């Protein structure tokens, strides 16, 4: 018995989608050539403004990413993890979220961060080594980046269990079981590599057992550093969900419209009390794993070139052009906006001062911690007494 497809109607402002997870084939609505195609399970009607705005999001995300890489090259950042190629997967999914949903991202979800309204400077601060996090998860509906692969999936499920309980508490004891319409959903982002972690699979167990309002959004970008996705599974990843009793769906991760539709539909399902969905966004990591990686050691240029032809931005651009849904002024404006963003980012980044050493003791604990207070005081006294940083030691 395959996980039963459930029809859902999701609406978000201008967009109306009728969708259902569980179909066998890759969900695609916009081909690499920019042709709009129909999908039996996801009937989408998207106005020009929505397409423009998705396109704009992707352009800005790519620009932030390019700037990150450049800043790292110039020694301004310690590291950068490029999202290039994954703009559609990230923007499409993040734009499906409501303000009070909670996303649990990894170190590569920069476009998600932008869509959630966080200033890109905050991302730079992490890779510059100023902070491990920085934005307020509650304000933005966005948990901190997770670097330990897969660890955030359980947090998302726990958050979803909390949402379930909130709804129950609000509605009182007589609520019909499982119905949580309108309440927030937790979204766990992770990669193809993460699917091999025990914790991610435990998250699947819990989500299934408690029918938690959570969406697992897996960007299968084909690689986990040097390991191809076949080193993590011998069947398509979206099928993993079957064995845990909830639907999985594979979507063209380079098709922003399809990703949006599939995610909206999964979110609606969760809001309606239908439980979890696993979305596998089939995409590609165009860059190296990070700026510290040399991808030529393990994969062919030909493969990369093939995927460049499936660029997520180009197909939307082509479609907007062909259908005359955007004029040159629009593209110019987006270009200008992106230039301004990059300039601002660079300026802010270069201007970020190193924090005072003693600040490293902040936020370890909420309450009093005498040994830490002593260690801090000891360092303070030591710093006071020691020579200027510039001097040769002693």
């Amino acid at each position, binding site marked *: 018995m395959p996980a039963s497809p459930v029809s859902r109607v999701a609406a978000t402002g201008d967009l109306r989608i009728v969708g259902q997870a569980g179909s066998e084939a890759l969900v695609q609505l916009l081909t690499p050539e920019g042709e709009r195609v129909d999908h039996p399970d996801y009937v989408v009607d998207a106005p020009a403004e929505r397409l423009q705005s998705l396109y704009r999001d992707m352009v800005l995300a790519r620009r932030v990413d390019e700037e990150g890489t450049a800043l790292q090259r110039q020694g301004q950042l310690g590291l950068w993890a490029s999202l290039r190629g994954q703009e559609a997967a990230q923007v499409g999914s993040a734009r499906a979220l409501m303000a009070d949903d909670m996303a649990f991202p990894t170190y590569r979800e920069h476009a998600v961060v932008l869509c959630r309204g966080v200033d890109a400077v905050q991302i730079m601060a992490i890779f510059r080594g100023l902070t491990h996090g*920085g934005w307020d998860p509650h304000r933005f509906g966005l948990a901190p980046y997770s670097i330990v692969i897969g660890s955030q999936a359980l947090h998302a499920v726990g958050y979803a269990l909390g949402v379930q309980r909130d709804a129950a508490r609000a509605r009182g004891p007589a609520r019909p079981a499982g119905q949580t319409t309108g309440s927030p959903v937790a979204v766990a982002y992770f990669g193809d590599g993460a699917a091999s972690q025990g*914790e991610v699979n435990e998250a699947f*167990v819990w989500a299934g057992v408690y029918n938690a309002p959570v969406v697992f959004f897996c960007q299968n970008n084909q690689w986990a550093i040097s390991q191809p996705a076949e080193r993590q599974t011998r069947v398509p990843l979206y099928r993993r969900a079957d064995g845990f009793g909830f639907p999985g769906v594979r979507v063209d991760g380079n098709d922003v419209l399809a990703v949006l539709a599939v995610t909206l539909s999964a979110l609606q399902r969760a809001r309606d009390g239908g439980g979890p969905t696993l979305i596998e966004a089939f995409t590609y990591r165009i860059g190296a794993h990070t700026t510290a990686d040399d991808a030529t050691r393990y994969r062919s240029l030909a493969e990369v070139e093939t995927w460049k032809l499936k660029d997520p931005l180009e197909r939307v651009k082509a479609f907007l052009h062909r259908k005359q849904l955007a004029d040159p002024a629009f593209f110019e404006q987006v270009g200008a906006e992106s230039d301004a963003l990059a300039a601002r980012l660079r300026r802010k980044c270069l201007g970020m001062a190193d924090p005072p050493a003693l600040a490293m003791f*902040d*936020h370890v604990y909420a309450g009093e911690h005498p040994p830490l207070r002593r260690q801090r005081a000891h360092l303070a006294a030591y710093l006071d007494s020691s020579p200027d940083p510039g001097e040769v030691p002693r």
Partner: protein
Amino acid sequence: MTMVQALNAGLRAAMGADPAVMILGEDVGRLGGVFRVTDGLQAEFGEDRVLDTPLSESGIVGTAIGLAMRGYRPVCEIQFDGFVFPAFNQLVSQLAKLRYRSAGALSLPVTVRIPFGGGIGAVEHHSESPEAYFAHTAGLRVVACSNPQDAYVMVQQSIAGDDPVIFLEPKRRYWEKAPVDRAAAADPLHAARVARAGTDVTVVAYGPMVRTCLDAAAVAEGEGMSLAVIDLRTLSPLDLQPVLDSVRSTGRLVVVHEAPSNCSLSAEIAAQVTEEAFFSLAAPVLRVTGYDIPYPPSRFEAAYLPDLDRILDAVDRSRAY
């Protein structure tokens, strides 16, 4: 009441006082936990607040983190000490670090209860003392109760605090009885306690070994020797002030715990006390601990565990310096 009953009463009080408090763990609901610490709580507070979970420790701690992010105050039960390790990644890299990672934006008021220690004749993995792993982990707080009164108070304090707490329960003392005064003024959670005043040698312990040390002190008294016994109560942060105060007068210190000695609490206490009270010490700090072997089959535990004799032997050796 017994320590199990005291913990049960403490949990009930915490749940009654704050609807955000939840309990999750294996068999904590219908069964009331394998030690019955959560007995009756599901019936009283509902399945939504006392959650029987899948058999997945990393899931228990990981989802508790998510629940805490949503405003809940989860109390996790790990069934036995030896089963905490599947959750280690969530404890050490997530629970301990998320406040720091989020620059203070996230609060993680998660209490992780662990029945710990030996002495009950159990099979493998059911008698371990993992406290040093947690005390070594910055971002966690670690406490151990030794008697029903403390159990009742400390579990509530742990739940009420905004930091994650590893709450260690000495399972061999679960069934020992003592009166619990629910209205008594309480020490702060992170304060050590002088369990018995004494002048000749200071003995420090926590959790299950406090009773053993008090017994040793009683025997010693019969032999004309006065032992001070300090119940540490808090393992991280350590509160060594009462120990230092005592050592400054006795000049001798014996530290006792069940855990293996290498890089343990007794090492830390010895190092700190020696540094702070160097000129007061007439003898080096002596340690009476489990051996550096896996917890042995139960027929060996009488020899493995520190007992009254081994404690008094160390006291004698200390006095012989």
